[in-house]
């Protein structure tokens, strides 16, 4: 990357697809400490503001016949509530606010990250891992609190033939502990990949300034590709939030009803 940076002054294409993910202080050039106000802080704060705008200000009229904002807020509420009830069961309703919090944070971070020059907080494994581990730990604790040692029945599959059960138990335990890894990397990886690909195509876009002959073909193609990937990313932004949330519900269901 350093070599590419040096080439910035020359008439060559410049690739910095990963620079958009750099965490930097908003004020000054200092190092990034625990409490430093960084671009992470800014975009997370914007997420909070956007959520408050939709869910609090949007519903402030409490209209029986809802307006646009209130409709969207009610839609989000109904969407996640139905998901919790359908996937995790009626007895998972007390956990609905936690799941709603995760969904709203992820979906708003993903969409805000799609704004040009934005910072995508959910593209960082540190962020998604904290949420995934939090889900993993809570679900495991809930499982043991609600079912006691009966929660271990999740790993001991009664439907399988007896000789197979220890092997299956081993596989189940491994897959159980891999859950937070896949849970977090799926979200961060999707967000990072999409944004990096857009940046790579964006780097190809000024080709026409360097070589008219090649650029005539490459520049429109890369602009078209940016548009297409952006559309795909809009879809992915929602789908990944949905996937993260529904997996949380599935894990919660395992904790509440460990017997298959």
């Amino acid at each position, binding site marked *: 990357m350093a070599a590419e940076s040096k080439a910035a002054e020359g008439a060559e294409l410049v690739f910095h697809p990963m620079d958009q993910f750099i965490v930097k202080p908003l004020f000054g050039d200092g190092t990034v400490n625990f409490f430093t106000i960084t671009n*992470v802080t800014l975009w997370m704060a914007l997420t909070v503001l956007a959520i*408050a705008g939709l869910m609090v200000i949007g519903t402030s009229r409490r209209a029986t016949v809802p307006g646009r904002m209130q409709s969207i807020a009610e839609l989000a509420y109904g969407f996640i509530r139905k998901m919790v009830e359908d996937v995790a069961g009626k007895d998972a309703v007390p956990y609905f606010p936690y799941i709603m*919090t995760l969904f709203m944070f992820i979906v708003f971070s993903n969409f805000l990250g799609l704004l040009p020059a934005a910072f995508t907080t959910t593209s960082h494994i540190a962020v998604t891992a904290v949420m995934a581990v939090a889900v993993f730990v809570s679900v495991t604790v809930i499982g043991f609190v609600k079912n006691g040692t009966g929660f271990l029945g999740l790993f001991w599959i009664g439907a399988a033939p007896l000789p197979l059960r220890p092997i299956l138990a081993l596989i189940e335990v491994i897959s159980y502990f891999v859950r937070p890894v896949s849970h977090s990397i799926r979200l961060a990886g999707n967000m990072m990949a999409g944004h990096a690909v857009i940046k790579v195509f964006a780097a190809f876009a000024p080709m026409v300034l360097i070589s008219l002959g090649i650029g005539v073909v490459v520049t429109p193609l890369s602009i078209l590709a940016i548009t297409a990937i952006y559309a795909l990313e809009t879809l992915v932004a929602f789908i990944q939030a949905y996937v993260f949330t529904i997996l949380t519900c599935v894990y919660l269901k395992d904790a509440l009803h460990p017997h298959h």
Partner: protein
Amino acid sequence: MATDTTSGAHQAVSACLNEYGGAIGMPQLCGEWFGNQIFWLVVTLLAIFIILSKIALPRIAGVLADRQGAISNDLARAEDLRAEAVEVEKKYEKALSDARAEAQTIIAETKSEIKSQIDDEMASADAEIAVKAAESEKAISEIKAGAIDSVIEVAGDVARDLISAMGAQADRNQVETAVANRMKGRIK
């Protein structure tokens, strides 16, 4: 990398950045940024959780419950109104058939009344006619009788005049008796 100052760029402040401020490898794997991100993530999630669970979710749940209540209220009221409409229609049908029946009885009553009136009128007219006819008959018979007397008288006068014309003195009573005798049996 931070020691490279020949290019004139400012010193990198992080092990994850090169001297131009560009990323080295994946910024996602830069351990020195983890703490900052995790701290702000926890703050953010807490803020979102408090906003949602204290304000937004109860409010939306309330709005949805209110709407459900309003809808079921309206449905119940519509059901009531429908039942009322059916009842009113029944009442209307009943009133209509009652009115028809009443009209029929009124027609029948009126008919019979008119008939009896006509009968009465006919009877009285008949009686009157009978009286008038009897009176007329009497008058005719009186006139008839009157006419015969006149004829007898005239005949008597004529007979006396004839007798006197013949030069004889006619006795009044004699002539009258003779005329009466002659007339007897001819005029009833």
